[in-house]
């Protein structure tokens, strides 16, 4: 089980297109991957787009990613990269 903190830098926050990329990437790993807001108990399945959009994450929000499973190391690296690179978007 690993935990990492990421920052949503996109102008529109974790909007539909970014959320779709996140779900696709998360679903490519067998590990369970959860998202939560800092200080909140509620954990969101990062393989569920309905869950991620309902989290309504705005720009500048830090999130905690909890990953548990056989490929957790690889998943962590890939997810960190996705957030750092703004989901491949300009802004």
């Amino acid at each position, binding site marked *: 089980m690993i935990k990492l903190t990421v920052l949503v830098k996109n102008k*529109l*926050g974790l*909007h*539909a*297109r970014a*959320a*779709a990329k996140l*779900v*696709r990437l998360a679903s490519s790993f067998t590990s369970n991957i959860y998202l939560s807001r800092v200080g909140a108990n509620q954990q969101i*399945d990062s*393989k*569920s*787009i*309905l*869950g991620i*959009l*309902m989290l*309504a994450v*705005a720009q500048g929000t830090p999130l905690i990613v909890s990953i548990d499973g056989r490929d957790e190391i690889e998943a962590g690296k890939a997810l960190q990269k996705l957030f750092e690179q703004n989901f491949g978007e300009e802004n």
Partner: protein
Amino acid sequence: MSSAKVEMIFQGNGVSPGLVVGQALKLGSHNRAILKIQLAHENLVEEEVLRFEEAVRVSREQLLLLKAQLEEKVGREHAFILDVHLLMLEDRSLHAEIVENIRRYRANAEWAVCQATDRILRAYESLEDEYFRERRSDIESAVDRILINLSGGKGVGWKSVSGDLIIVSHRFDPSAFAAFDVEKVKGLALESGGRTSHTAIIARAMGLPAVMGIPDFLPHVSSGDTLLLNGDDGQLIVNPSPARIESLRARIDQFRAAAEPAAASTMASLATTDGTLICLQANTEFPHEVAAVKRSGAEGIGLFRSEFIFIGHPHGYPSMEEQAEIYRKLVEAMTPHSVAIRTLDTGADKSLPDDDAVISSNSNMGLRGIRASLLHQADFCTQIEAILRASSSGKVEIVLPMVTTIQEIREAKTLIERVLIDTGMGQTSYALGAMIEIPAAVLSLETLAREVDFLCVGTNDLVQYLLAVDRGNPQVAHLFQPLHPAVLRCLAYITDVCKRAQKRVRVCGEISANPFYAVLLLGMGFTNLSMNPLAVPVIRKVISDMALADARAIAEKALTLITAQEIADYLVESVTPRISLDLTPFVKEIRDPNGHGFPQRSS
């Protein structure tokens, strides 16, 4: 046996008359019933889960295909939203909840899907951020696809419901009538809509009592509640007391009896008291209305609005053979009378799914009618071939909608001739007519009339275009005045030109179903009126009480009056004493065509 429920009274606008008692059938956001059906056997549960999974699989394939098409058309950047829909319909938490609903409640998949989706939509509704809150529309769109695939393209599984039903919904699209079981649905109660919406027009055509514009009543009604619906005064009573129903029993039974087949004293030809023959025909949308048309005493179908067989079709476009079969049955049933088939006229609030590609802010002025047909020539030719094939079974007329220029008629004729040659039906004779509904067509009628065999005046659209009033817009709906002096002058001009050109002319619009308006049209010189079949018996009676000379005098005088209100008052005053029927129920309709009243000046 059941505990007494609280009686609740709601007030809306009565847009289609009649009094009925029935069970509420509540439809979801897309005209879909959220009916819970208990599965008969435990062993059907896993079958139901498989049926759901299959619907998701089919939905997924459709979306992938759509996505590929969209990427080709508008580029990958814009097609991503379908990717979001794909992820939504495969969403594993949603999927798990739906399967859990099916198993735990032993319920049908449709209900399980709606139940889970409603919960999620409510959660989204509470989000503060507008962008995320609005993702509800994406969720609805994705789920809607699953529902469509579950029920095979049909809105409601009508087979599974029984009894007299009253549809309860926020809105009800005209296209939804296509998948409608007329034997079961007895009324319509809606939060939105008004008298002149297409839905109201169809409700009246089907003799279906309807109340629209009932504010915020949906949260108080569940499927299965007993409702008392009064389409005359616009009242809807939820859980009416048995005493109340009993007190109205006589009127309810009376309405039910009126909806039954009328006595067939109607077969003789119709004439005014001074001997002028008048031909009343029926406007129809659905093939199954033929029985009602025949009962009404109408002499044929003056306008068959063919778009409804397209809208109701599971694959969008029925094949030539399917269409020919529908037209042939219509024509055979109406023999020896004729059937006028208007070619596809989508637009306004009756768009086909394909039309989603281009969203125009005012589709009334956009690509519809003959304009669309000349662009999609293959579809037009398919329909023409089907109509011509049906013409071997009886009398058929082809009517072109939304004609603006002579060139359009000429191009259509060239296509029709080509179909005749290509299919080896060169000897087939047909009558060609044009809808006169655009002011430009009225003003160029002298030349247009030479190109066709007959003319159909589409008064609903003509009034709308002439007065530049969108009848669906409540802010201007009061300006939709079929008795505006300009409308009367236009109609008088049309009969005048047609008489000189020796062309047949028919009025196909809602207005001819009103006795006062019918007399006015008669006086102007129209001798062929087409209307909803339920109105035919009344108008028949009115005309048989009327002398043409009197009608002419009334029309002449009406044409000199300067406001719609004056004209309405004059018609009520001059027509009423001449007719042996009680015309009171029709007064409101011409005095106040939209239920808004004529605008009053404050000074």
